[in-house]
């Protein structure tokens, strides 16, 4: 997640400082071999300096979205996992702008542009700055969409850098919203700049300016009419032996005067050396290290290491070829070169690539079954409400009922598909992060609800299912907006057996209690509507009561087992069965509450409506155990934190308490009314 990038803040800041040097096409590169200077932008240049490369007379033609298919499945090691380029592209877009596409253009096309034609991306409004204070602090004109382009942010880059350094020195927990946003924005801009430089060696370079036309003849380069006044690093690299020969000749010649061509070649070779050494660590790890399994290098890393460059010359050349095909608009060449590069990668890293399922992953990215399921649940929720508006028995009601079943069933199918695909891609059991609990809880509770509905055919359980699907998956989609939801596990959690059993049991327990709560809501509304039920109404309410009771028992069983398994897992890993960790305590609260409810019911202290109210409170306790404990930021369970969650959690709790009060009031009033009439 973001935090991992932020932990490399120091080197990133160094990169920024290093890059804040003028790099315009007609500024002379200093000839000293001391490395790039860290000179502040020259105001005499009209303050128009930019960190983005320029096309320098060789504009890029680009490729259409559908011509980038092979690029979509190029492998990249990102956040500890080998994934297809398309997933990384979506992840970056989500992180930067909160959407995974740019006004209809897929994230992959934007990424391709950033890598191969960075000069064109300066005006794309990629960066979301949510907090208006931050935009103000950076003196950026606020936009309604709150998304800004790099060029809008560039003038305040040094200010952003200073503010980030300041924010970084404050410990994580004490940062305010503005500081967090500044760090986030800085991280995103740094990531963006990093990507624009990842294939620098293949793009026209301002420091490799060719002023003497004859050099082109000597080095067999295309004429300036064809190719502008500069060359790319790689083009020169390909002609390195020729240049070496000429340099050799110069060395032996003891004369004072060098010819213009010789001068230029000396200058070019110096510039090349500088460029190869200052290609900073790039985040684009696409070339596997042939000697070390699991280690992937960036192209600039390979270029900077002569030994590696020799061995992987073909692969790096293929990447350079990709860049030129893209810029020349040559779709066929691009496709061929991508495919051959991908094949080379599979040869270099058979172990890593053997574990991947790129086609499936890209399919899942594009289809987004979770989102489809969410939409379908929304639809089914509306049809379910409509169904309740019409008296039972009417044809309309029957059709609405069937429709709801169909849509909800389809939604469940997509949901289960999304969980299964995730298991296949990640090679691990379904619930290993906070995000993943939502789809799983939804799947279990909705499956049980549909099963109950088949037996009772009242519509109550069906409505509960649609409500749960809508609510839980909407939250899940909010989490998904945080970035890549398929992260690697910390060592402590890396134990498949106990992890799967404990977490699955606990989430099943959550599901049951949540379902009981959902059905209880419906029961309480029914109870308020007909407080003194008779005949058919009485039997149907009794049936709902049995459902609440049954699911509560189910919830107690699984919560208890899950809690105990958690203790066993803790005993196996850390030496103590129970450590009073907030998450352990949360699970214990659920167990105790369910026990209280069931014993109270057994002794007659509460009756059916009381049990339903208790189930609603049970759902509140589940939400505290599930979400609230992470907000305490303590103990071994604090690995999922969402900003603003505290407010949302308390709003939910408040809403539930209000609901109970209102229902109770209405029930009492209507009871009195029906008695007196």
């Amino acid at each position, binding site marked *: 997640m973001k935090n*991992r990038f932020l*932990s490399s803040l120091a080197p990133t800041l160094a990169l920024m400082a290093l890059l804040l040097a003028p790099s315009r096409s007609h500024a002379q590169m200093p000839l000293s071999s001391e490395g790039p200077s860290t000179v502040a932008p020259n105001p005499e240049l009209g303050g128009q300096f930019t960190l983005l490369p320029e096309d320098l007379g060789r504009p890029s033609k680009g490729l259409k979205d559908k011509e980038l298919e092979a690029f979509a499945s190029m492998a990249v*090691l*990102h*956040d*500890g996992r080998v994934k297809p380029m398309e997933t990384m592209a979506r992840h970056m877009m989500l992180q930067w702008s909160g959407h995974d596409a740019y006004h209809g253009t897929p994230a992959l096309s934007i990424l391709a542009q950033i890598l191969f034609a960075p000069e064109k991306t300066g005006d794309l409004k990629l960066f979301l700055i949510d907090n208006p204070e931050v935009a103000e602090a950076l003196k950026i004109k606020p936009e309604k969409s709150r998304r800004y382009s790099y060029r809008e942010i560039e003038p305040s880059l040094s200010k952003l850098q200073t503010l980030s350094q300041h924010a970084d020195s404050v410990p994580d927990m004490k940062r305010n919203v503005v500081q967090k946003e500044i760090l986030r924005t800085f991280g995103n801009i740094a990531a963006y700049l990093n990507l624009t430089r990842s294939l620098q060696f293949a793009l026209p370079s301002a420091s490799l300016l060719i002023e003497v036309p004859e050099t082109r003849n000597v080095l067999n380069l295309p004429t300036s009419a064809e190719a502008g006044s500069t060359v790319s690093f790689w083009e020169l690299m390909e002609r390195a032996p020729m240049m070496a020969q000429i340099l050799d000749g110069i060395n032996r010649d003891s004369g004072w005067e060098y010819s213009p061509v010789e001068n230029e070649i000396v200058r070019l070779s110096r510039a090349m050396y500088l460029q190869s050494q200052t290609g900073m660590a790039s985040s684009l*790890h696409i070339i596997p290290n042939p000697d070390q399994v*699991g*280690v*992937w290098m960036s192209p600039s890393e390979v270029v900077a290491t002569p030994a590696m460059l020799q061995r992987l010359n073909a692969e790096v050349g293929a990447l350079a070829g990709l860049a030129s095909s893209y810029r020349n608009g040559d779709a066929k060449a691009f496709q061929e070169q991508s495919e051959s590069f991908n094949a080379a990668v599979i040869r270099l890293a058979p172990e890593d690539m053997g574990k991947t399922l790129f086609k499936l992953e890209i399919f899942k990215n594009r289809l987004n079954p979770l989102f489809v399921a969410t939409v379908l649940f929304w639809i089914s929720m509306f049809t379910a409400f409509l169904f309740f508006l019409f008296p039972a028995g009417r044809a309309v009601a029957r059709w609405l009922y069937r429709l709801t079943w169909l849509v909800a069933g389809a939604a469940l199918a997509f949901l289960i598909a999304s969980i299964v695909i995730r298991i296949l891609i990640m090679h691990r059991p379904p619930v290993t992060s906070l995000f993943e609990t939502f789809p799983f809880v939804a799947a279990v509770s909705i499956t049980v609800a549909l099963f109950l509905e088949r037996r009772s055919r009242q519509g109550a359980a069906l409505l509960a299912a649609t409500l749960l699907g809508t609510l839980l998956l909407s939250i899940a989609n909010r989490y998904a907006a945080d970035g890549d939801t398929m992260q*690697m596990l*910390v*060592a*402590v959690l*890396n*134990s498949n057996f*106990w992890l799967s059993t404990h977490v699955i049991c606990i989430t099943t327990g959550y599901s049951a209690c949540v379902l009981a709560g959902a059905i209880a809501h419906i029961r309480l509304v029914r109870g308020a509507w007909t407080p003194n039920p008779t005949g058919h109404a009485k039997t149907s309410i009794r049936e709902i009561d049995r459902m609440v009771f049954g699911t509560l*028992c189910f919830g*107690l*069983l699984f919560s*208890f*087992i899950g809690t*105990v*398994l958690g*203790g*066993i897992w803790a*005993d*196996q*890993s*850390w*030496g*103590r*069965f*129970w*450590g*009073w960790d*907030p998450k352990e*305590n*949360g699970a*214990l*609260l659920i167990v*105790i*509450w369910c*026990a*209280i409810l069931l*014993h*109270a019911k057994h*002794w007659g*202290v509460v009756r059916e409506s009381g049990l339903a109210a208790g189930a609603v409170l049970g759902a509140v306790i589940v939400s505290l155990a599930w979400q609230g*404990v992470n907000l*305490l*930021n*303590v103990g071994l369970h604090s690995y999922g934190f969402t900003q603003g969650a505290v407010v949302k959690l308390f709003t939910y709790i408040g809403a539930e308490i209000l609901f109970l009060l209102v229902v109770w009031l209405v029930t009492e009033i209507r009871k009195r009314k029906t008695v007196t009439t």
Partner: protein
Amino acid sequence: MNLKWRQKAARHPVTKAILHPAITLAGLLMLLMLVFFGTLYQADHGLYEAQRIFFSYVIWVADIVPFPGSSLVLWVLSIQLIVFMLFQLPLVWKKAGLWVVHGGLLLLLVGGFITQVKAVESQLTLAEGETGHFTTAYDKWEVAVWKAHADTNIVVSYYDYDLTPGAVLDLSPWPARLTVMRYYENAAAFTSLVTGGTLPYLTASGIASIEPRKPEKDAPANSPGLIARLSSGKGPDREILLYGMETRPLALTIGGERMMLQLRRRHYPLEFSLKLNDFVRTLHPGTDVAKSYESYADLQDGLASRPVKIWMNNPLRYKGYTFFQASFAINKDGEHSTFAVVTNPGRLIPYISSIMVFAGMLLHFLVHFYGYVRRTARK
């Protein structure tokens, strides 16, 4: 089958009083509140303090209002449970599930009690190549007195809970006594401002005085201090000062023998020894997130020695001890591996009781579900 004596006992007013549902419900509700508020308290004040307050018998809210602590509530509920099973729970097959559930629950409470009283948690940090013969407590202290004898030290120690003012600690087999004058669970130490003056107490590090401090939120960070009077048969009494953060013990002559005294974290000698050969840490590629930690060691018991591997989620269990890979340190002195060491005679009880409760619940629900299905089938 309901025995006559059981029926009589169940009707007795004392039994009825003990088994009153209000007590159970109130008790469970109190437990709920204790766990909830204890968790919130823990976030600000640390686990140690939270456990100390919430696990006591009485909690004084705002120093005036008494509220039952977890220990009290659990004792009351345990007594209720025992009486319930002794007299009230019907001895019929239909309730077999409930018998198993409540039996398992009772076992769980007993196991929890045993763990509370008898479990010992300590740690062992070894550098590569180093052999460990004892483990060290995290936040429990002892005052240790020893004499060197060839390669071994013969130690007499008293644990920190015995160090109350006025307590007399007998140091036999050596002819001396230590009378505790002051003991602070957490203290700050001060050296003298005047160079060359004589110090009021005998110390190993030149400390002139100690002052009490509030206990740290993180209990292992506490540094206790002790001022005591050493009296032996021969010679005058000497007043000594020992402080937890000192690295060297205090050397004294007692009865003609050279003895060492130190206030240190408790040492728990092992019946065997563990020699760390190599520590390995692997990261998830391209990240700084740890994938696994592994320690390769030799377990030496007497003359026998065998190689063992201890890694995350895979502890070493030997002779009642469990060694867990807890953490590590890599610095200029080399690589060090830290193990969490636990002895707990009640370790297996939660496993057994959980199986019992699960089986019992399942049994009970199945019995009722079966009955429900039969009833609805008849209709």
